[in-house]
């Protein structure tokens, strides 16, 4: 099991030498995943809350589909985005394929259902407590939505972090729509996959280690911000 030792060593060397390629890849990874999470949260939070609050025909089906779409296979999402953005596809003229934008689009599709489904659960639980009071105050579901998102913000952090986890770990979709092109669309996960296929397992593990440290850092930051806000606000 020297590989694990080698992996630490590889990670250490990469980080210490401030490898330029590594910096570039890490930068792109963060840019893609954070942008995707931001957009997915903008869509997923209100969407999940709306499904939790509104009663409409077919609502149960929507809930089930949201839950099921937490399991959208990245490769399939990548494929669909690829077909849409490819030159032969309807949006081919935009020339987005194999750019970071394409990767962001794919990840947004992938994690919006996750954020929405988890949000739905949080808001539904909160709504069961608030419903009568808010309706009495004249807030129908539409107006209650923002109040509930605000009041549930501390629990919703976990939903958004789940989305971030999926985005930062995902390889299937970004591989297909980004193409893992060196200096253009190579991110941590696709770099790891590449090293694996080269058989350089230690380097792959080392990169994985760095990725995990990064995402732990981001999760830690989110946690601290939340704790500070909790202290002030109860």
């Amino acid at each position, binding site marked *: 099991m020297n590989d694990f030792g080698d992996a630490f060593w590889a990670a250490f060397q990469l980080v210490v030498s401030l490898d330029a390629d590594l910096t570039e890849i890490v930068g792109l990874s963060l840019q893609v995943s954070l942008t995707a999470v931001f957009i997915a949260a903008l869509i997923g939070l209100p969407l999940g809350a709306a499904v939790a609050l509104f009663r409409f025909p077919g609502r149960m089906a929507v809930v089930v589909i949201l839950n099921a779409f937490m399991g959208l296979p990245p490769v399939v999402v990548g494929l669909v985005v*690829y077909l849409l953005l*490819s*030159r*032969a596809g309807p949006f081919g003229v935009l020339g987005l*394929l*194999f750019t970071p934008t394409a990767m962001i689009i794919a990840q947004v599709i992938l994690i919006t259902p996750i954020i929405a489904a988890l949000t739905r659960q949080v808001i539904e639980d909160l709504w069961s407590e608030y419903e009568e009071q808010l309706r009495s105050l004249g807030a129908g579901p539409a107006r209650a939505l923002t109040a509930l998102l605000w009041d549930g913000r501390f629990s919703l952090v976990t939903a958004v972090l789940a989305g971030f986890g999926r985005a930062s770990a995902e390889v299937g979709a970004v*591989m*297909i729509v980004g*193409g*893992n*092109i*060196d*200096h*253009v669309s*190579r991110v941590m996960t*696709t*770099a790891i*996959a*590449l090293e*694996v*296929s*080269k*058989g*350089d*397992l230690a380097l792959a593990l080392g990169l994985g280690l760095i990725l995990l440290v990064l995402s732990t850092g981001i999760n830690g930051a989110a946690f601290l911000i939340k704790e500070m806000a909790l202290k002030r606000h109860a």
Partner: protein
Amino acid sequence: ERFITVASTTSTRNSGLYDYLLPKFQAATGIAVRVVAVGTGQAIRLARNGDADVLLVHHRTSEEQFVADGHGVERFDVMYNDFVLVGPKTDPAGVKGGGDAAAALKTIAASKSPFASRGDDSGTHKKELGLWRTAGVDIAAESGTWYRETGSGMGATLNTASAMNAYALTDRGTWLKFANKADLGILVEGDKRLFNPYGAILVNPAKHPHVKAKDGRIFIDWLISKDGQRLIGSYQLKGQQAFFPNAKAMN
């Protein structure tokens, strides 16, 4: 169940050869073959760890190194096919019909037409890098501009090429079977340098006692046997012969 595990490359698997060959082998010997198809580097790594019984890849230097290091018993020639240079049928660089792969690459570089490289240290990738060297193009400097390293398997690289309308080097087997050709076609073929030999190696049971040496040997022997070689030669993809048997010790 009696079975052996073979570490091989995606290109061989994707060509459909195994689907054609292995049932016949099992019928003849009662041994099932489990193929793990991964990148060349990963395949060699698997074999080195003793996670496969037989290694079947197409990068001669690495294979010989593998045997020299004592991981494998002996390398046997099994077959070859060839690489082809594919690209847009409109051929913006104007390389179509040429018989010199290196010259074609040089022309592509001069015209800065998009080129999709596997960039994954695979046999195909190493072959391509050798050709660039022959052509005298310093390809590392161009990475990220018109020269795009996809860092992925043959199929994924072809998908990228067909979406970008780029040139690419591929093995013929994968190409024939590949379904998403879009506007791409074969532009350069037949150069002797594009020769692509496959070798089979039994993983060294002295290093890895659990290796199913007997059954592995039966498999290799069968591959290089008259029957095996005939069957390899008879495998057709879209009406074309995909692999050419070249075992030395036909018995």
